[in-house]
Structure formats: structure tokens, C-alpha cells
């Protein structure tokens, strides 16, 4: 993990004496504070006061909102005051210091917590600018630290609410210092290295959004919340809308069309908000991505730690040949969000981008026909069980529809099983290898050979009879393992040996 030749807390390289000059901040190693303006931002967003909401609900229930407007106004004022107080306290008790060897963040109201991240454990720095922060000229800095087994929320330090210049200074300093030996990285070298654009978002790609599950979920959830909210309002507040005549088929049809159009529009808008002016550039040893309309997100990944990438296509995306690309980076927390290299785009573009990260291992090798049988059986099994139960229900209770549902599930199982089989594939190339699986979201992982930190081969009784096996490449990045499902048992030893660096995988070879 750590380079054995370097001490874990390296001395600051000479000639790196910038930083202390920014707006009269305390000298090196001194504790800094975030900008006091953040108090206003946190008050407005109820950041700290949000935790009090569960406590407020029963209170409101006891007092009741029936007294009318005064009670509501008083409550709002009280909450705002509370929020202001909490935000001010939070600001007062928060401090950070980027010393020569480590970043230290001190916080906590009563129980003080001090988090220290040694500089060589810093995996990436993300500078994001939510809308309100932008109004006040502030940014939020997330420092990503490599951590093996601790929870995801402990892997990062968040310094919320520093001035934009200070945020940029933190980013360049933390990342510049991490660059291994050689000429001391100075401010000019870190600030203006050559840039190479890897990908740029084309606004036409937004049209793919209605076919992508994750962009559809947000508007659907919003509609759900709205309905629940309307349900909970007192009856007097709900405007009296005439109940539409639901028995009229035409009304239903029009409503359905309108709903679909609105949903599609919402998905496009959602995708635009997240991905607005997305750009991926290589700057020195890092890949930098910038995106977002309201919240600008600025993420840096270290190229040396990239072990490969995944290309994933959802069911809807496959119809229009769209795909997304994620980088697989060792020791990166929240890899799904941070590792995104192409949020949405044409498949061809995605493939070109993936090739720039890792060599092309060549076309996929299909899995044997036994794998197709196995996928079909598995897809049909649930339908057949449902049909059998339905038959029983028809015979005993006269529920013919149960049989019909079972039959429909069985019929749908055929394309499902065939689709799942078509997704399967693997291939070992000269310097990289790839595996692919999945139907609802088909994911192809392409990895460098050195990425593999272990192999796991699984074989169930049924796989044993069909002479198949599932091979998982264990990787210290992404989801931790990428599987070639239902390979021919005879190919396993050859594939694992060809797909890992060094000779150790030869241990698996049959004698």
C-alpha cells in the first residue's frame, strides 16, 4: 500500500513555501477556520438543525397546527433561530490545519474529534460549489483518504465553507505534495501543466436521459413525496379539484401520455443539472472532471492509481447504444460517484475513453452452451414455480389469474435468460483482461493485469454437473471483485494465468 522507501509522514519538499500568504492566514501548521459566511449558508439550509426534525415532529403533533398562521410563523422563526445558533456553534468549533505531513480537522461541540490524514494517504481532492456557496463565494473541499476497512463516511474529510481561493490552494497543495520525488513540485508546475481533453459533454446526449434508470428515479421520487405531502396536509388546505372521471378511457390515455412526457422532461432536466458542461481532462498525473449546473463539482483522480474501468449499459441505454464509464481506482471511497469518467454518452465514445485508460484486451469470448442452458433454467424456474402454485390455486380456489401470471412469468423468462446469457463473456489480452455480465445493467469491466490481488473460483453442484465455474477477479478497487459467470471449467486455469501479472496464478493449473 504505502511505498516502503518513503516514511509515512514525508517532510515537506523545499521550495513549496506558498500558502501562508493567503488572506493573512496563520502560519504553517496553525489552525485555520472556515469563512464565517458559511454560518449564513448553513442557517439557510438548516444543515445542523436538520437533525432536530425527528424531535420536532412529535412536538408539532402535541401542540398542533390548528392555531393558524401565528403558530406556523412562530415555529418557523424558532427553527431559524435554532438553526442560526447551531450553525454558529458548528463554525466556532471547527478548525483545520494542513501541516507539513498531514491534514488535521478538529470539530465537535462537546466531544472534540480530531481527524488526521497523512498526506501520502490522500487519494483525491474534490472541490464542489453548491448554489448557495457560490452566492457567498465559498466552496466545499472533500479530502479523500485511502482507508481499507473503515466505513465509507470515515474515508473523507470535509472542509465546508472556505473561500474559493483557499479551496484551490488546498487542492493544489495537497495534490502537489503527493507527487512522488523528482524536482520539487512548485506552485507554477502544479497550476499550469499541459492539459489534454479526454471527454466533453455534448448536450445532445441529454436525450438519452429518459432511458436511464437513475435519472428516472429522481422525478418519480419527487412525485411520490408530493403525493405524500398532499395526503398529510389538513383537508382545508387542499384546493378542491374536481375528481377526473377515471372511467373514461380517453382521460386515462391522455393522462398517461402527459405523465410519460413530463417524466422524460424531468429526466432530461435532472441529467442536465448534474452533468452540465461536463469535461474530463488529464492534467499532469491526474484526471480532472468538472461538472454540474447548480453545484459545480471538481474531482481529481490520480492516474497512477487507476487500474481499469467499467462500461455499463442499462436496458434502455442499450436500445440507443448509450453507455457510461467509471474508473476503477484503488483506495477510492464512493467510487461510483467519484470515479465517473463519462456520465452518459454514445457507446462508441465510451469505448474510446475506456481504451485510453486501459489496453483493449480484444473481443469477448462467448461462454459455452451449457451456460445458456443454466441461465435459461434459472430465469424460467421462478415462473415455473409460480405457474405450478397457480395451477394448484386454480384447481382448489378457482383463482385462474394466478395460473395466468405464472404462465406470463415463464414466457418472459425466455428472453430474460437468453439476454443474460448474451451478456456473458471474458477475454484475457496481452496487458489487460475483461469480464462482462448483467442484464438490467450490463457491466463490462476492463482491468490491467496488475490489478488482480487474488482469484476466487466458485462451483455449485449444478455448475459441477454442467462443467462450468464462476471466476471472480479480486481487485482492490470498485466493488472489490469482478466475475466471469459460468465459464467452461476447462478454461479457468488458462484464463486466470493469462489475466494476472507474474506467475503466481499458475498455482491453479491442473496437474
Amino acid at each position, binding site marked *: 500500500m504505502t511505498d516502503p522507501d518513503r516514511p509515512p509522514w514525508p517532510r515537506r519538499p523545499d521550495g513549496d513555501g506558498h500558502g501562508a500568504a493567503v488572506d493573512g492566514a496563520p502560519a504553517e501548521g496553525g489552525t485555520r477556520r472556515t469563512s464565517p459566511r458559511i454560518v449564513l449558508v448553513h442557517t439557510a439550509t438548516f444543515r445542523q438543525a436538520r437533525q432536530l426534525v425527528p424531535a420536532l415532529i412529535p412536538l408539532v403533533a402535541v401542540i398542533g397546527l390548528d392555531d393558524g398562521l401565528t403558530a406556523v410563523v412562530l415555529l418557523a422563526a424558532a427553527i431559524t433561530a435554532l438553526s442560526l445558533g447551531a450553525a454558529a456553534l458548528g463554525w466556532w468549533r471547527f478548525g483545520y490545519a494542513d501541516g507539513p505531513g498531514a491534514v488535521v480537522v478538529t470539530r465537535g461541540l462537546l466531544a472534540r474529534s480530531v481527524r488526521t490524514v497523512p498526506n501520502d494517504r490522500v487519494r483525491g481532492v474534490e472541490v464542489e460549489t453548491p448554489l448557495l456557496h457560490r452566492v457567498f463565494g465559498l466552496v466545499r473541499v472533500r479530502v479523500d483518504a485511502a482507508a481499507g476497512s473503515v466505513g465509507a463516511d470515515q474515508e473523507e474529510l470535509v472542509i465546508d465553507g472556505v473561500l474559493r481561493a483557499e479551496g484551490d490552494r488546498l487542492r493544489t497543495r495537497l495534490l502537489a505534495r503527493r507527487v512522488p520525488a523528482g524536482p520539487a513540485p512548485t506552485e507554477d508546475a502544479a497550476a499550469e501543466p499541459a492539459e489534454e481533453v479526454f471527454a466533453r459533454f455534448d448536450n445532445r446526449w441529454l436525450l438519452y436521459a429518459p432511458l436511464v434508470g437513475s435519472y428516472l428515479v429522481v422525478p418519480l421520487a419527487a412525485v411520490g413525496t408530493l403525493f405524500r405531502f398532499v395526503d398529510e396536509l389538513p383537508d382545508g388546505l387542499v384546493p378542491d379539484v374536481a375528481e377526473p372521471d377515471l372511467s373514461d378511457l380517453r382521460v386515462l390515455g391522455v393522462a398517461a401520455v402527459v405523465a410519460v412526457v413530463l417524466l422524460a422532461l424531468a429526466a432530461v432536466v435532472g441529467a442536465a443539472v448534474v452533468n452540465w458542461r461536463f469535461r474530463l481532462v488529464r492534467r499532469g498525473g491526474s484526471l480532472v472532471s468538472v461538472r454540474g449546473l447548480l453545484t459545480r463539482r471538481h474531482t481529481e483522480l490520480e492516474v497512477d492509481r487507476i487500474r481499469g474501468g467499467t462500461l455499463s449499459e442499462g436496458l434502455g441505454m442499450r436500445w440507443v447504444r448509450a453507455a457510461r464509464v467509471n474508473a476503477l481506482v*484503488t483506495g477510492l471511497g464512493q467510487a461510483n460517484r467519484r470515479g465517473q469518467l463519462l456520465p452518459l454518452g454514445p457507446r462508441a465514445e465510451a469505448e474510446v475513453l475506456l481504451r485510453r485508460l486501459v489496453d483493449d484486451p480484444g473481443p469477448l469470448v462467448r461462454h459455452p452452451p451449457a451456460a445458456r442452458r443454466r441461465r435459461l433454467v434459472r430465469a424460467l424456474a421462478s415462473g415455473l414455480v409460480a405457474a405450478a402454485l397457480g395451477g394448484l390455486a386454480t384447481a382448489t380456489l378457482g383463482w385462474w389469474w394466478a395460473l395466468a401470471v405464472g404462465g406470463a412469468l415463464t414466457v418472459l423468462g425466455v428472453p430474460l435468460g437468453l439476454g443474460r446469457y448474451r451478456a456473458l463473456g471474458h477475454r484475457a489480452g496481452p496487458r489487460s483482461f475483461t469480464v462482462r455480465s448483467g442484464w438490467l445493467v450490463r457491466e463490462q469491466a476492463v482491468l490491467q493485469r496488475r490489478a488482480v490481488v487474488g482469484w*476466487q*473460483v466458485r462451483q455449485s453442484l449444478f455448475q459441477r454437473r454442467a462443467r462450468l465455474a464462476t471466476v471472480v477477479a479480486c481487485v482492490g478497487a470498485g466493488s472489490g471483485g469482478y466475475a466471469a459467470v459460468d465459464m467452461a471449467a476447462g478454461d479457468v486455469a488458462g484464463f486466470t494465468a493469462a489475466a494476472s501479472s507474474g506467475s*503466481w496464478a499458475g498455482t491453479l493449473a491442473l496437474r
Partner: protein
Amino acid sequence: MTADSAAPVRDPAWSLSRSAIGLWVTEGVLGALFYGALVGAFVLFVPVGGPVPVLRWVLPSLVAVYAVVAIGIRPWYRHRVHRWEVTEEAVYTLTGWLTRTWTLVPISRIQTVDVTRGVLQQLFGLATVAVLTASSQGTVRVWHLEADVAQRVADDLARRTELVRDEAT
């Protein structure tokens, strides 16, 4: 085992000690007692004309089958399947019963080596060696080695990891 062409990879060379069978039998007995107590409570406390009368004899027979399999069959079968090996370059295990899992981790990618001894394991003088890597799925556990063997293996692995360690991720 090599004559079996359905096997995807070769099996590790060394089998576990016989004490592991005793441990697995004990686990099976404890499990059977636990389920037996649950079912006994069900039969005793749910009135005779309960919701699904069939359950009154289905559940006890299921427990009986479980007891026979978990005490009489599974420990011996597992002992035949489970194997392990430490080679020049890697740690290699085979575990499982109906579904078999072979796991191979190169010594150069080992991050930590743990030795743990559970309560039952202490009764039988056994220990588990866990070899962890940077991947959450790339963990090798060698179950139920004799305690002194486990300690020797762990020390040996830790020493060799120091020598060959590269970036390990």
C-alpha cells in the same frame, strides 16, 4: 481428484486435521438443539387447531433431517473437501460443501494476516488464519488449523510478505 474433468482448477495439497470434524459435529449438534428448541416451543405453545396443522409434523421432521445431515454427514464431507496450501508465491484454499470455492491470493498482495480463535475452536485447539488483501472479496480464510500450525503459518506469511511486498493494490 485430477481425474475429474469437471474440476476447474487443481485442489490444494494439504487437508485439515481430524479435530475439525469434532468441531463441525459440535456445531451441528448446537444448531440442531437450537432449531429443536424452536420447533419444540412451536409444537407446545401453538394450539392444536393452529393456522396450518400440517406444520406440526413437517417442522419436527425437517429438524430431524437437518440433525442427521449436519451431525452425521456434513462434517465428514467437509473434511474431505476442505484443503489448503501455502506455496512459494501464494496462499491457496478450497472450502465449501455443496458449492465449492477455491481462493488464491499471491503473497505479494497480502496486506494483513490475522489469527483468530473462537470459543469452540479453543476447546478443540484450533485456530483460523485470515489473509486480507486490498480487495473486500480477496480474503482467504484457512479454517480450523491446529493452533500452533496456524501461528507458524501466520508468522511465516507475515515475514515473507515483508520481503516481496510491492504496491499490494
